[in-house]
């Protein structure tokens, strides 16, 4: 049947030479879709949906899909990544309910109070909280909470908001690298590569922290004059102490329940493999528990799931599946493999900067979706899997740093800054910070992977 044929083809590649015409046609559709996303000609869900429909029509017309019922291939593409969609839906519901309970806002204010409003303590605290929130909430909800906190707190304490906003925008991408479920590209790659949750604690978590340290020191150095305490320290401390972290907690019982459910879900993610279930199952358990015990309207919580993102993913899976079926991605992978030979360091030297740059221009999710089959093919040619997968994870997440449109974190942070405070950070100013951070992070990632590879520190997949 089609399913068996497709599953056999996907990782191992399509045997024999593929016709060039489908590659060209579907490749053009892919590039046009990416361009529409990168230049915001269309909403990204609409762009992906349009690209997927055109790709399917092209593949059906050019007999790319095999089997008696060629269209069944489309369902296989979606079924292959159903786990990713499950995690997104489940965690969206849980995060929505936990946020509505006031849990994350409580933690944010409590953290600020611990710093006493001193910029020297507040700045690293903002960085730490950003990484923490993104690690557990994923990038968009984590950044929304942190950027709101930063804008309100800096106004209240009369501090310059720009360095704090930038540390949120850039630090968030390091946070997305922390665990399996911290970022959507991480989730997609982790699922495709079959990487267990605990491996992330061993490999990507230290890298995430190192990349955050690099970003922290560069931003701190760049804004050193703005990060010194001014005014009366006692007055500032009194002002911060007057913040009421319980003001937004509507019900303390719900608050404690949500905290417990969130903590258990995170534990569940870590032990999913030992429990013999996927993390999508854990995410749904967390969502169900939150819906049952929070008193939050189920209809409202389910309505809050970002359905445009789900549509975007389904369309993207179909589009990338179609491209993969033409053999185009294999050609790309084989070219990289041919250039690098069996030299993994060279393969990484090509792969990591390439992904960094493309993820900085196009949304990093389509880049991850495109590169997953490429890496699978490279692994099939005999290159070791571990450095390539971890290199892709690092580059996809950190690749959002150089430009103001490279990651959702920067887009949210800069938009919020302009909307709430009327301050616009142009490409030039952002590139000075984000671009330099990227220039420091690329060699850091390459060096880190090289050290892990040579010291055989990568857990085997």
């Amino acid at each position, binding site marked *: 049947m089609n399913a068996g044929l497709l599953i056999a083809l996907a990782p191992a590649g399509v045997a024999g030479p593929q016709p060039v015409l489908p590659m060209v046609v579907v490749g053009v559709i892919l590039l046009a879709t990416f361009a529409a996303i990168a230049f915001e000609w269309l909403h990204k869900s609409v762009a992906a949906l349009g690209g997927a429909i055109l790709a399917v029509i092209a593949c059906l017309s050019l007999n790319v899909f095999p089997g008696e019922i060629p269209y069944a291939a489309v369902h296989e593409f979606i079924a292959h990544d159903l786990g990713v969609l499950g995690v997104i839906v489940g965690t969206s519901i849980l995060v929505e309910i936990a946020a509505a309970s006031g849990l994350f806002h409580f933690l944010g204010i409590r953290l600020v109070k611990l710093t006493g409003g001193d910029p020297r303590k507040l700045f690293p605290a903002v960085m730490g909280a950003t990484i923490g929130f993104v690690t557990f909430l994923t990038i968009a909800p984590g950044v929304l909470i942190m950027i709101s906190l930063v804008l309100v707190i800096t106004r209240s304490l009369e501090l310059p908001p720009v360095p704090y906003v930038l540390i949120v925008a850039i630090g968030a991408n390091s946070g997305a690298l922390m665990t399996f479920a911290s970022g959507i590209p991480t989730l997609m790659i982790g699922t495709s590569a079959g990487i267990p949750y605990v491996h992330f604690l061993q490999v990507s978590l230290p890298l995430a922290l190192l990349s955050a340290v690099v970003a922290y020191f560069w931003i701190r150095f760049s804004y050193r004059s703005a990060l010194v305490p001014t005014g009366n320290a006692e007055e500032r401390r009194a002002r911060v102490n007057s913040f009421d972290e319980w003001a*937004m907690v509507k019900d303390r019982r719900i608050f404690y329940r949500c905290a417990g459910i969130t903590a258990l879900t995170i534990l569940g993610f870590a032990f999913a493999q030992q429990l013999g279930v996927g993390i999508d199952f854990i995410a749904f358990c967390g969502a169900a528990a939150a819906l049952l015990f929070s008193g939050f309207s189920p209809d409202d919580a389910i309505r809050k799931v970002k359905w445009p993102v789900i549509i975007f993913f389904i369309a993207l899976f179909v589009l990338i599946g179609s491209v993969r079926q033409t053999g185009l991605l294999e050609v790309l992978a084989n070219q990289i493999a041919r250039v690098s030979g069996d030299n993994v360091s060279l393969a990484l030297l090509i792969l990591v900067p390439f992904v960094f740059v493309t993820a900085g221009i196009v949304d990093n999710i389509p880049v991850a979706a495109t590169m997953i089959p490429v890496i699978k093919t490279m692994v099939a040619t005999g290159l070791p899997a571990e450095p390539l997968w971890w290199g892709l994870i690092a580059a996809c997440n950190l690749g959002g740093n150089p430009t103001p449109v490279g990651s959702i974190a920067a887009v*949210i942070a800069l938009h919020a800054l302009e909307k709430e405070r009327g301050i616009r950070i142009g490409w030039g100013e952002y590139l000075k910070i984000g671009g330099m951070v990227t220039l420091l992070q690329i060699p850091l990632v390459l060096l880190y992977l090289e050290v892990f590879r040579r010291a055989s520190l990568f857990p085997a997949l």
Partner: protein
Amino acid sequence: MDQYSDTDLNENVETFRAATESASQPVPTVDLHKVLVALDGSNQDAAVLNMAAVLISPDHAHSVQTGEGKAGLPVGKDFLDHANVHFKNRSSRKGPAFQSILDAWEADAADMILVAAPHGEDYRELGDASVGTNVDILMRRRPVPLLVLRAPEVKPAACLQRLIIPVNLLEDQQRQALSWSFAILREKGTLELLAVIDEEILREARRLAPDQTGIEDAGEMVLAGLAKPEAAGLIATAQKACVERGVNCRVVVRSGAMVEVVSHYANDGDAVLVTGCPSCGTETGCQRVVALLRASRNPVLVV
């Protein structure tokens, strides 16, 4: 997950603002020294003067007489003299009444304007659809809060014992509404925060609330927080301020059509309804307050 909207952003900013402002900054104190009282010779003049006397017994009241007044002024002067309230007449019979009132305010700025508006039940010929052109315009152009009296048989002292703030109708005026409420609320009075919530959410939350708190008032507070996230901040502030001022605070939750629910609740007994006129630049916000004024038998303070 990988998307956001301005609504998400606003919600988060408002939530943090509630934490940093509502609970930490005390509600500013408003001193009510001077009330501009508009008299029109109707049977509501006595009620208006009575309210002015109760509001500012030790200080000064200024009066502007508009229209073809008959009984209002002499009765009012005697009354105010008796109440030891200084009275200053600014009689004006030229131009529209609202302009006379605004001119009088400009000449001698008062802290509040007090006017009467005919209530439908007492002025059948006007129907329910009018609170009068002058009040409509004054509400939109008010330089200071406007207290509008409706039914002539109003009992000022009793009304000022119970103030009702519909939290859904306040946007930027939350703190202002609280300040003015505390300025006019009598000792040992009660401030009631009325939240109107979607019926489905209310039903679901009510099912869970008794189990969560076991205290009826606290349950109501929880439910009110569900109406608007920022309402939680207002409720926290109000409760804290009420404790500091030694007045009672009660949170009430209802569901249904906003204006009908609020007016029905407020008309049950003597009270003053305190509301803002949200987004006065847009007609919708004002229309809702006008609709509330029309439906209310009790005085309405528009801050």
